[in-house]
């Protein structure tokens, strides 16, 4: 198979997989392919899609590479599918969730100490969505409940596991850089590896 053929084959693999595939998986699927060459071809494809302003783009995620639609066309794509249940979390819930994620296991009092406000309704909301769960009690007077994140949390944010979260120090550094460069906040996630993205959903009939 010639090189142009290889590139098109990789494209076919990306399309069929839908979910992210790794360099190793690509190499195993094509005879004579190596992960290094695969990487090269993927970068070429990425550039081509950018240059031609395709409706989709090639992104690098934790588990590998994936074809996804461009955010610019999100509205149109959304209309193709049945209504997606809004998964947006409130600011209070996001802060509470961030604390649980980075300090787990943690009690309500500890969370409220950090935020400086009551976090009961935020905790309730997160428990309802199964993003956090009770994992035990702290052996101190009062034996308060301890909270930790769940698998659903990982799934919701497209994380392989908890170590996929950047450390607080790394985040602080990136944030400082973003602020100084005056980049749009929405964009700063692209300076970090994107987490894997979810499938589109059910088509409207």
């Amino acid at each position, binding site marked *: 198979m010639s090189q142009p053929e290889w590139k098109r084959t990789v494209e076919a693999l990306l399309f069929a997989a839908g979910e992210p595939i790794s360099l190793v998986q690509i190499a195993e699927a094509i005879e004579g392919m190596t992960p290094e060459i695969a990487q090269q071809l993927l970068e070429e494809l990425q550039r081509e899609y950018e240059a031609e302003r395709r409706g989709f783009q090639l992104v690098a995620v934790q588990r590998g590479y994936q074809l996804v639609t461009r955010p610019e066309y999100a509205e149109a794509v959304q209309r193709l599918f049945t209504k997606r249940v809004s*998964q947006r979390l409130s600011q209070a819930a996001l*802060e509470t969730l961030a604390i649980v*994620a980075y300090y787990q296991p943690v009690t309500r009092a500890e969370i409220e100490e950090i*935020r400086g*406000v009551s976090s009961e309704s935020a905790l309730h909301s997160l428990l309802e969505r199964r993003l956090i769960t009770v994992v035990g009690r702290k052996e101190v007077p009062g034996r308060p409940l301890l909270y930790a994140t769940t698998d659903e949390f990982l799934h919701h944010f497209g994380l392989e596991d908890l170590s996929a979260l950047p450390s607080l120090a790394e985040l*602080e550094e990136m944030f400082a850089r973003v602020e100084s460069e005056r980049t749009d906040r929405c964009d700063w996630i692209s300076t970090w590896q994107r987490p894997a993205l979810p499938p589109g959903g059910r088509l409207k009939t």
Partner: protein
Amino acid sequence: MPARAPLQVQLPDFQGPLDLLLHLIQKNEMDIHSVSIAQITDQYLAYIELMQELDLDVASEYLLMASTLLYLKSQSVLPSTRRRRSEGHPDAIREALVQQLLEYKRVKVAADYLESIQRAREEVFSRPPDPAFADQVAREYRYHASLADLIAAFRQVLARREERELLPDFPEEIQEEPITVEAKMREILLELETQGSVAFGTLLDRFQSRLELIATFLAILELVRLRQVFARQEEPHGPITLELNPERPDISSLEWTSFDEPAGVEAYR
């Protein structure tokens, strides 16, 4: 004369006193470590007053912070009579506040990060793998029904029953066996062991009396709580299926909620 529309003022939505303080510090382009408490305090109080004037609910935490700031401000002009190292010493309080602000700031950044992931995931779509490989999908994600989902589903069952008439709770014929939650739990487990799974709706639809419905529902909740049974829901607000947890802990070693004991008398004493 047309009525005057109330003045619409947009205050940014602060999460609490720390959030407000960080905002003020940033606005004044100060460094958290060397923040001028005196300056910040006045601005902080002005904000609280504005919130009160607009009839907004000012959480007690804001007021508590206000008093802390006022104390620190007052101490900055008076010589302190306390020993430097004591907990009540303004320097210690001030340092604690600075640490608290720094930690909260880190949390805000982390929350921001999570939010940007959330937003990114909303705006892009990918294809699920070709159905030909459905069984090879690494993570078949199935949604666990939450307590709220179960309650909502139960409500639906009750609503359906209201249309037909339920049998009275205490029919004239004496019941052969009293209906207990424990018995229902055993029945459900037995059915799941034989059938593998059963639909929530199907299970409840077969009962006639309200008492049985409630006992069965409580039994389901208890079994889920004891991790004997999973309540699966493919999509939000969709039908719920009950399945045995293949890794269920030994039920006899667990602490059961006592539903069936005559708690009534003791409770009302």
